[in-house]
Structure formats: C-alpha cells, structure tokens
C-alpha cells in the first residue's frame, strides 16, 4: 500500500472512531455496500483504455514439446540419430543431456489449418480448428533451463523466490469485479507442479492478492460446505450471533479490523452460495458439455476446469490460472505427449469457441504455454528401451500462443532455425510476454510497481518490451 492510501485509511478510521455510539453500524454499512470503503480489492482504473478485462492462463507445466505440436522442423530428419556439429551447440546449457546428444526428428505429421495456414501436428485435432483465433508465437525464450526457476521467471519475472506472481500483480493493478468469488483463481489438473503454490503467490504484495486454489471435485473452494448437520439457515443464525458479539467488541475497542472481520464473514456466507453455483453445470446446454468433453472420461477433469474458467470470467473473476502437469517428457515422448494432448486439446478448443460465441473472447486474454520448450536432441534414460526416448528442457526457442483480449488473431509470430535450436526472427522474452499481457489489460508494465525493501519492483523486473506484432 502506498503512503497516500495509508493516510486515507488512517484519517477514515479516526473519523469513524470519533463518531461515537453508532460507529459500528456506520462502518459496517459502509463496508458491506462498498461505498467509499477503503477496499484494496475495489476495481481500479487501468493506466489507459484496456482491450482485455480478464485473463485465462492455461499453464502447461513441464515444458511442452513445440516441435511435436506447433513448430514443424523437417530439417531434423537429415540429422536424425546423429549429433550436431560442435559449432552449433557450443553455447548450449541443458539440464540433463550433453550438447553432443543425437538429434531426434519429430514423428508427428503437420498440416496447415484455417485461413491463416497455421501449423499444428496430428496430436491437436481440435485446437487446429480454432487456428484463426490464435496468435502463435514460435520465438519465445527464457533464461531458465530448469522447472522451478523457469516457472518463477514466467510468473514473477524473476528466478528468485519471493516476488508476486502475474495474477497477484493484475489484481493489485485492476482490483476485483467479482463480488462473491476470489479475483485470482487457480485450478489444477494432472500431477503436482514443481513451482506449486509459488506459482500463484502474492510474494511481497499483501496476502489478499494471492491466488485461491479452487477444486473441480468436491467443494470448489476449501471449507465451503457447512459441517454436517448445519443447514444454511443455521449458518445464518450462527453468523448473526457472531456479528452481534463482534459489534459489541467493536464498540468496546474501536478497532476497525473488527468491522472488516464482520464484512469478511458476510462475504464468506455469500461465497457459500456462489461457489456451488460455479460448479453446478445443470444450466449448461448438453451441446456445451459435449463440446468441452465434460462427460468424457479422458477430458472430464480438464474440461470441467475450462468450463469453470469461462463461468468465472462471466462473473468477473479477473485472473484464472489452469495448471496442468506434467509436460516434462524426458522419456516416452510420443505416448506421454499424446496423453496430455488427449486430455487438454478438446477442452481448450471448446473454451476458445465458447468464449467467442458468447462475445467474451474480445475481453478475455487466453494464454497457452509452459515455462520452456524441449530440445531438438534426444534424451535416452534407458538404452534398453529406444521407444522411451524423450527430449530435454530447451529455454532458447519455444512456442506459446495467445488469443482474444486485443491480441491479433490468425498470425504466427517469429521463427526458429532449421533445427528449432535458435530464434531467427522476432525473439520474445518472457518479460516481453508479461509486458504485452499487462498492456492488453490497460497497464504500463513500467508503471505497475510496488515499493518493497526500499525500491520499486515490477513484474517485468528491469526489462520487457510490448510486442507490437501481437496487438490487434
């Protein structure tokens, strides 16, 4: 919080304290109705007119293999099974394999789709159908070649611990427009991610900005259901008693934190209604459920997460992150990559279509990608099992895509060399991606700052340039 805000709250508090008898009620009415209340989560004006209001970040943890999905490299065939000449690999720093490892050509078949002629492999039969809505960026690069630092860099702009994540920055910058749900929501599927909770941490920002982990089965929000035997009316009666006792204490002590506590309990009560509504798909048409794949065993969990993401965006949840793990195919590339695609391809394509048909895609920025890509060279962990071959982490050139929210549709940006090793055109650093995402939300990445340890910090650290080619 900046000093000005602090002073405003302090003077507000002393005003309320001086009112005397009815102060509890004034403060409470104020907080509950949001009128002029010093609510740090109130919607804020961005720096300039925004193109997007919400973000859905489809995080593919582990590093999906770009040259088996989006960036065909027929040039690899020539080198397949052979190591590359040392002059091509001399600066390469990889996590597990040596730069002298043999090349692995992709066994995938690629075709061009849509008006744009965007490339997709045969593993993505659904996403390829929304090609003309996507902005494919084949020239992403990052500084980290291992998962956790890579994830921290992607989400916080720094490989070190302790910085706020993108979702926290966005909510800090724009506030919340969802009355009864958290502004920064996280849904997970598959395995646990190596970044874990640090991928949605508030870092040094106040903890109200941290992402809330929602669930697609059971209570969508932890501790949302009343204990067994407590009905909604009973819960209301309990909350009324709690409120009355709290107000008594508020009058006694004059501590405005008690008024905030009362407001928090009221919001919790409303969340107990909104949460189950979020997870209740009974009003969705069968066609919609079918499109996402909610009733298909393979796609069920990710489809549920995607549909919940759309429903959250509809009611103003600012930033939704879906984490799917893991795309870390050091081994069993063909099988494991197919499995991930089978799980996510249809739901993601449905999400794009659904957002579009509801007119939400214009104001919702969808981002797809991992913390890095994978190497053109093979990784063999078990020499007795050649079919188990995989690829190592590749930070120097990989693919992500964006859609909606003021992003230019149907274009492919950047290109990599013949072997997918290096970027040859339009490199986009993770910081540039962050700057561009903030820009679409109406924020200047150099001005969205927070003072900590004696200096201003920002998501893009000390770099980042908005990528003009991505803008619609």
């Amino acid at each position, binding site marked *: 919080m900046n000093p000005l805000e602090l002073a405003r709250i*302090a003077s507000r508090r*002393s005003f309320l*304290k*001086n009112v005397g008898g009815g102060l509890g009620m004034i403060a409470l009415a104020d907080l509950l109705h949001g009128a002029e209340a010093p609510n740090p989560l109130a919607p804020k004006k961005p720096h300039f007119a925004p193109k997007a209001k919400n973000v859905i970040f489809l995080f593919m943890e582990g590093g999906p293999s770009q040259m088996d999905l989006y960036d065909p490299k027929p040039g690899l065939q020539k080198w397949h099974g052979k190591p590359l000449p040392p002059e091509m690999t001399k600066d390469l720093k990889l996590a597990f394999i040596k730069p002298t490892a043999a090349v692995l050509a992709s066994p995938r078949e690629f075709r061009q789709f849509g008006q744009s002629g965007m490339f997709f492999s045969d593993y993505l039969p659904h996403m390829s159908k929304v090609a003309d809505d996507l902005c494919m960026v084949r020239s992403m690069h990052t*500084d980290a070649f291992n998962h956790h630092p890579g994830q921290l860099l992607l989400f916080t702009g720094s*490989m070190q*611990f*302790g910085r706020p994540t993108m979702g926290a920055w966005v909510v800090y910058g724009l506030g919340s427009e969802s009355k009864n749900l*958290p502004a920064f929501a996280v849904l*997970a599927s598959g*395995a*646990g*991610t190596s*970044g*874990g*909770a*640090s991928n949605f*941490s508030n870092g040094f920002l*106040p*903890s*109200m900005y*941290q992402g*809330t*982990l929602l*669930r697609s*089965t*059971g*209570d969508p*929000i*932890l*501790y*949302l259901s*009343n*204990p067994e*035997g*407590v009905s909604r009316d*009973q*819960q209301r009666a*309990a909350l009324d*008693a*709690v409120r009355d*006792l*709290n107000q*008594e*204490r508020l009058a*006694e*002590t*004059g*501590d405005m*934190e*008690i008024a905030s*506590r009362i407001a*928090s*309990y009221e*919001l*919790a009560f409303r*969340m*107990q209604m909104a949460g189950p509504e979020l997870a209740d798909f009974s009003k969705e048409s069968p066609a919609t459920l079918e499109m996402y794949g909610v009733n298909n065993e393979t796609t069920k969990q990710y489809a549920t997460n995607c549909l919940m993401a759309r429903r959250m965006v509809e009611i103003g949840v600012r930033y939704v992150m879906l984490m799917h793990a893991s795309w870390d195919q050091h081994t069993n590339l063909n099988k494991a990559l197919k499995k991930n695609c089978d799980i996510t391809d249809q739901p993601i394509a449905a999400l794009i279509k659904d957002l579009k048909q509801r007119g939400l895609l214009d104001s919702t920025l969808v981002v797809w990608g991992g913390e890095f890509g994978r190497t053109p060279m093979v990784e063999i962990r078990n020499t007795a099992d050649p079919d188990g071959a995989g690829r190592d982490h590749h930070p120097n050139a990989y693919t992500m895509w964006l859609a909606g929210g003021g992003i230019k549709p149907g274009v492919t940006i950047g290109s990599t060399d013949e072997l997918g090793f290096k970027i040859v055109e339009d490199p986009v650093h993770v910081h540039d991606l962050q700057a561009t995402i903030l820009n679409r939300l109406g924020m200047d990445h150099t001005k969205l700052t927070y003072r900590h*340890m*004696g200096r201003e910090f920002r998501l893009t650290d000390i770099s980042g340039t908005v990528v003009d080619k991505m803008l619609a």
Partner: protein
Amino acid sequence: MITSFKAMVDNAVKLLFIDESKRTPEQREIMTNHWVRNLGPDVAKDKPLNDRLKELREKLAKLDAGFTPLTHAMTVTVDPKAPQAYIALGGDYRSKGAEVTPGLPAALTSAPVKDRLAFARWLCGPENPLTARVVVNRIWQEFFGRGIVRTSDDFGTQGEKPTNPDLLDWLASEFRDGGWSRKHMHRLIVTSAAYRQSSATRKELSERDPENTLISRQTRLRLPAELIRDVALSASGLLSTTIGGPSVRPPQPAGVAELRYGNGKWVESTGADRYRRGLYIQFQRTAPYPQLMNFDAPDSNVACTRRSRSNTPLQALNLLNDPVFFESAQALALRILRNEANSRIDQAFRLCLARDPNSRERERLAKYVDEQETYFETNPKSAKALMPMSVGTKPAEAAAWVAASRVLMNTDEFIVRE
C-alpha cells in the same frame, strides 16, 4: 559409534582390507556387527542357522528400539582448497565478475573479517550494536505488532528510522548485558507496564498520537496462523503440548496434498499427534497446509522477518467449516456442559476469551442457545450430527452448545490478542 548403514558398510569394507592380526577389538566388533546384520547368500540357505539369526535379529531390533536416537551435529572446518568466488554479473553464475574474498561491507566495519569465526566474533562483539538492536526489535514487533524500527528486515538507509531510538538502545543493551537471553527479554517485556496496557483506543490519545508511537495503549493483534489452531485446540482442551519430534499431519481436505510436486500422500496423524501445536504441522513447499496459508504463514521459500495480517472470507470459511475447528467446537461443548446450566455462558467466555461476558453479550449468547435448543428439539438428526455421542444431557441441549461454541470460536476476539 557408527550411526548410519552406509557408514557402517563402508567402514566394514575398509576393515576387511586390514590384516586380521592388526584389527583392534573395536574393529573386530564392527565387522561382526556388519556380518550379523547383513546375511550372505550362503547363510540364507542354512535353515537352522537362519532361524537362530532371525531370533537374534528380533532381539537386536528390540534393543535398538530402546536406544536414544542419535542426532548429527554439523561442524565447520576451513577448506584449504576453497574455490575462488566471483561476482556473478547480472546474477548469472556463468558471467564471472571481479574476484571476491570474505569480508564485511565497509559501511559496517573496517576491521578485517577473514573467516566465519572472525565474523561470529564481530557479530556479537561490543563494537557492533546492530545485532542486538535487530533481535530486540523483532521481539518487540511480536509483542506490540510492529517494530521500533518498522522495517524489521531493513536497518539500512532504505529502511525506516526507529520511532523510539532510546528505547531500542536500552532494550539492546539489556539483551546483550543479560547474556543474550531471549527469555530475559520476553519476561522484561510481558511484565512491563507498556505491555500490560489495555488495547482500547482513546479519543484524546488517538488525536495526539494516531500511530500510537508513544505506546500509550496496547494494540489488538490477530494471532499468527499456527496459534489460531493452538487457541482452538486449547480452548477445547484437545491441545497436545508435547515438545519436539517429527512433524505431524493433522486432517486437511482431500486433494490438497495430491497437488504436491511428486504427488505425495498425506497420511493423517493419529492419537494425540492430531492435536499437536500448529508449528509442528508438516510444511510441504508445493502444497502447504491450507489453514496456515489462509492466515498468512510465510510460504517457506524466502526468509520472513514479519508477517502480514490479512482479513479474508477464506479465513471465515476456514474457522466456520474446517473439521479441525468443528471438532474443537464439539470438544469445547463437552467441557462447557460439565458446568451447572446457569454458569455455562460465563464459563464458555472464560475458556474462549479469558474474560467474563458483559450483560449484553451474556443475553445474546443465551438467546442463541435457546433458539438452537428449540431448533434441535424438532431436528434430532441435525442434533445427532453436531453431537454424535450421548453426553448425559438432552441431545438438543448438547447440540445447541456445540453451535454456541462454534459461535464463540468464530468471534474476532477469539483469534486476537487484545
């Protein structure tokens, strides 16, 4: 004494190459022990011998279990071949800048500090007041809600100036002269007049000193995450005050631990370990215990010198509906029901808030209990869910007290140090 299997094997192998006549009795014993604990394939074939060994092994295991477990203590020795250290340009270890040697920033001292021992001596030496100031400031922060230097993690030029510099120096001298005893400082502070003041605000003081820098009153402080669990368990009488030992795993919602990197399972602790203090809860970096995170526990990734205190609806849901807290409410109800009917409300306030209720509070809670009892009389199923066991009172009455306990445990005051 050799404590690890690996060390034992390595040692036995080493001893094997010492000529038998030159082995000391101790070395012979190590080899025998190794042989007894690691059967060779030939021995496994010999049934009677094997049976006898099995018997002996069981005996040995029993004896082993009776041993006090040994712990390792790390020590430091100077590495004569220590690698050179360089400034990593831009934070990248591959970009070597100037070579660096051990030392302290010139702003702190001009004395040479060439190794760890010299550093430790300087840190606690009489010429360096900073260490004692930083420590007492953090102690003060926990008792008064903020440090005398508010930026308790930064005493440098970017930090804030102390609000009460003389007090800080006096406390620092007390700490140093009292043999660096934290207990001495805790006692000194909690028995002071400043600490024992009321937290209630007073209009004339708020005008003169809105930030309370002169400490003319105490401050209401929401408890840290771990202590919120502790007060609930303590009020209900469930708390286990056992000190130390391995971490515990109290119940948490299904699916949380499964999101841990490496897909761990959360095997719930049983018995008294379910009710251990919050600081003993196992902390999993990628899937931390939700109640701790809801109440601003640091994520354990970076050092934290001061926690924030948020006030969120997720906290309300946590206290209202988490089975850990609901179970505490049930246990608290049992405690309260042991009292005479007319003293139960006062007793409940004392257990939860360490004070008697005023007349309005007493009336309000009594009204709630009555309403609840009426409700549960016509809803015996719900009553049974709230208090599943028979406790010698009417089920509706028992359930009403579970509900009332839950109300008290959800008041702001319950989780606040006043």
